[in-house]
């Protein structure tokens, strides 16, 4: 059933066939250095413009975050947190939220529609709208609360990591637009190396717990963060500490898929076996006569 139209596809939702493996894998990654992000939202603009999506004009709710949340038309978003350290020093933490492009994508795992979610050899996890049925299982599968289903067309959307740009050797639009180089793009290896430099710099500036956010619970991600406080990712607008695919989803889409079908098969086969061993239970003729006899006199 699977249709691996591209050798680049290494994982495909709801597909049971072996994916192609011959092509060499160079993983790419976007590195978001939160410590040099100035929250200018140029990435949001670039995303809107490259993908040609425009969300509604909202209202101010007393914060800088606009739009207030990701949506089918907002695939990336600055989230602002005013964080007060125990010593009273204030930090204004600004995190660009969006798809993390997990190595082990929960959305892909949860998706019931063959080929609606694919993962490319470079690590990008992409939604293929043609195959999307709009069930929203990806939302439940995602440990980062990223995918959104459009109310207009009932299709799921999220950051594509500009897979169309990356495919032709361009950096994602957000990385291209970022004025301070807070969004970097390259091979995952190079990005990890880049992050190491940044971490050393941050540590020299007093951020002892600076580090790279590349959570292994989802096999690592292809969007990574440099955090000043890598020990407390949750202070960055609830970035999950040790994210992983929910055990509920894992069971539902893993063991239970097998157990469930097996139990139905067992019920059916059990019946069949019973039938061929015990045979049908037939009402003997004598029983009918007995009944007719007993009913005598009551029949209208």
């Amino acid at each position, binding site marked *: 059933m699977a249709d691996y139209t591209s050798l680049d596809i290494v994982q495909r939702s709801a597909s049971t066939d072996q994916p192609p493996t011959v092509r060499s894998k160079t993983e790419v990654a976007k590195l978001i250095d939160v410590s*040099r992000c100035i929250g200018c939202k140029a990435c949001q603009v670039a995303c809107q413009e490259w993908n040609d999506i425009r969300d509604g004009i909202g209202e*101010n709710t*007393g914060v*800088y975050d606009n739009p207030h949340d990701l949506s089918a038309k907002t695939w990336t978003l600055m989230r602002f947190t005013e964080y007060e350290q125990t010593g009273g020093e204030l930090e204004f933490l600004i995190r660009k939220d969006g798809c993390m492009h997990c190595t082990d994508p929960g959305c892909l795992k949860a998706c019931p529609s063959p080929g609606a979610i694919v993962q490319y050899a470079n690590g990008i996890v992409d939604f293929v709208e043609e195959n999307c049925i709009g069930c929203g299982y990806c939302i439940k599968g995602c440990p980062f609360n990223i995918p959104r289903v459009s109310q207009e067309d009932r299709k799921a959307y999220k950051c594509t990591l500009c897979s169309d740009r990356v495919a032709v050797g361009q950096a994602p639009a957000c990385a291209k637009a970022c004025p301070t180089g807070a969004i970097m793009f390259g091979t995952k290896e190079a990005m990890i190396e880049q992050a190491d430099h940044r971490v050393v710099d941050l540590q020299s500036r007093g951020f002892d717990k600076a580090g790279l956010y590349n959570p292994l619970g989802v096999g690592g991600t292809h969007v990574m963060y440099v955090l000043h406080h890598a020990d407390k990712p949750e202070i960055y607008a609830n970035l999950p500490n040790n994210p992983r695919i929910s055990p509920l989803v894992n069971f539902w889409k893993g063991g239970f898929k097998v157990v469930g079908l097996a139990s139905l098969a067992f019920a059916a086969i059990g019946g069949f076996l019973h039938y061929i061993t015990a045979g049908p239970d037939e009402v003997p003729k004598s029983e009918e006569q007995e009944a007719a006899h007993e009913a005598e006199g009551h029949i209208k």
Partner: protein
Amino acid sequence: MTNHWADIKHADVIVVMGGNSAEAHPCGFKWVIEAKVKNNAKLVVIDPRFTRTASVADIYCPIRPGTDIAFLNAVTKYLLDHDKLQHEYVNAYTNCGFIVKEGFGFQDGLFTGYDEGKRDYDKATWEYEIGPDGYAVVDPTLQHPRCVMQLLKQHVAQYTPELVERICGSPKEKFLQICELIATTSVPDRTMSSLYALGWTHHSKGSQNIRAMTIVQMLLGNIGMLGGGMNALRGHSNIQGLTDLGLMSNLLPGYMTLPQEREVTLADYMSTKHFKPLRPGQTSYWQNYGKFFVSFQKAFYGKAATKENDWAYDYLPKLDVLAYDVLRAFEMAQDGKITGYVIQGFNPLMSFPNRAKMAEAFGKMKFIVVMDPLQTETARFWQNHGEYNDVDPKAIQTEVFELPTTCFAEDEGSLSNSSRWLQWHWAAQEAPAEARSDIDIMASLHLRIKALYEKEGGAFPDPILNVNWPYEIEDAPRPDELAREINGYTLADIKDASGAVIPAGKQVDGFAQLTDDGTTACGCWVYSGCFTEKGNQMARRDNTDPGDRGIAPNWAWAWPSNRRILYNRASCDPQGKPWAERKKLMEWNGSRWVGFDVPDYGPTVAPEKNVGPFIMNPEGVARLFVRGLMRDGPFPAHYEPFESPQANLTAPKIRGNPASRIFKRDLAQLGDPKDYPYAATSYRLTEHFHFWTKHARVNAILQPEFFVEISEQLAAEKGVSRGDWVRVWSPRGSIKAKAVVTKRIKPLMCDGKAVHVVGIPHHFGFTGSTKPGFGPNSLTPVVGDANIETPEFKAWLVNLERTTPPAVPVA
């Protein structure tokens, strides 16, 4: 900027004060981040609000709006007290040893010569002592009690860290931490870059705010240096071009001045422009004023400007006041003395202080002309928009003409950026519908007025009839034609410095070739060199950067003379060697100055000649003491904003800047802290550009609605929750806004009293894609900087309460 954007990457310390560069200049801010990442620079942010710039700072320090001078003078004191000066630089390149006239003094917040009635100074004593040789007297030992260094020490003595805490509300430890960091750049191989913007200029003492930091930078030896400088980040494209081309009521292009009424003849005018050197052998480049002025007159009036008619000097208007700045203009309009207004690419109803006054003034005019690519509130000032513009259209008789213009992407020309680069750009697309370029509109207007004068005559039609108009298509001059005119050209054969003949009708190579005998024409001398016989220098796009100095001399063109760092002679010691190899810009090779940048100096002037690096100044050195060149004092002194929650602790009787002009009606409308207890400040948001982008859907999505920012403490006091509607009012008006309740604004403890800051962003109005809103200027006071009348948008008083949403505008 004395330096330029890319140069910031060489800084070791970057102080952002009086600006919010990450939000207002996010693209240029890349160089700050570059400095942090690649040069291990430390970033300091001093601001009333913990801004997005502060979010990436190494040290943030809060400050009460309008108290920067107290802070900076205290930094100066710290440097002097701790001997953190680059002595060799200070001694050689500043006027620290110049002796000031007997009688100069400063007491009770006033310099000598104050006249309370005129709100002005007699500046006679603010001058150097002139010796028998006709030059200023200098004491190189700096021991003379009246030498500038001693006077400076005396002047800043009162600005202790404790006083900073009491005035600015800046914690003493933070202040000292910042001083220590700043002081590390007093060594020759470390520099500090000062980035500022409207946060310093929008005050009644805006110019002095900048002066205060300039003094710090001079003492540290950071001017003319790679990664140093005083860097004004210009906000509006093309505001640098506006000032360069002299689009002010009192200026001519290239920072020349419009004559005053008393300067009846050219001789009178030139008598104030001799700029005789104040020390032996100094360049005093303004001595060439006559060449620039005559060449300008030749460009403007062509053949009509002759030696016999004093180069058509009489054609120039003569000012009867210092300037017809906007505050004065609308004061006059309010009195019915200005009855028409041509508004080209701005939105005064929202951009100038006291919107009620603006609206009244516009309502009294006979007509206004609005030239803009977008709909502005000014063009709709007469239209009722519910609470957002509560006017009665029937009561307004002003005729409004709207002339749609092209926007920057629809026309060709140059834009001057903060780096003083003139970058040529081409039209990306055709303008829609009837929109015409500003040039076309102005040309047509000129031709029609000229035709009227020709037909009907007039009192003195000559200045209009004789304007030089050499354009191929009269009502549509091409941008390159104008650029060539601005650059300048020869009218007769002239000789260049080497003696070679430049034939008539050729583009000049630069202002050095301009003459005062009518043989050259030049529209703006500082721009001379931008369009030479080699072609359009502004259109160059070679980013080769020898030595990785960030200079890229063949990228576009920078004024003056393609110099990227002003005063760069100061990057070398007096002997002509760079102060430090890593900060090298140029050096003396024995016969000429060579290096990465164009020397801001005579290219073959040997170091032994002792010519100072500040060639525009008759002293040849930089001025710690600025003589009588500023109206409000030769040193910066702390003055409170005109509306302040606190009396001036250094001089309790003085309100505001004593030399600032304030009109009677506006004075009567100043508020008292008893009724208006909160310190308000206004600012821009990174999501928007001025009043343009509220028309763009993408930007409206990013920041859709007007708001004010208040601290959690003030919110708690007022029972305001995040996202509630609040009303903010001053004696001049009242606005409603959503409340952003934030930890990023904290009450400041000033002299034992908590001062709450209310932050009010610009950008919003009743036109555009964003939700209708107000701006800060319904509330701001009409008072400006003593020198240039920039309004005090950044510090005034308001009151605040929780309220209900505004009434929905009438559809």
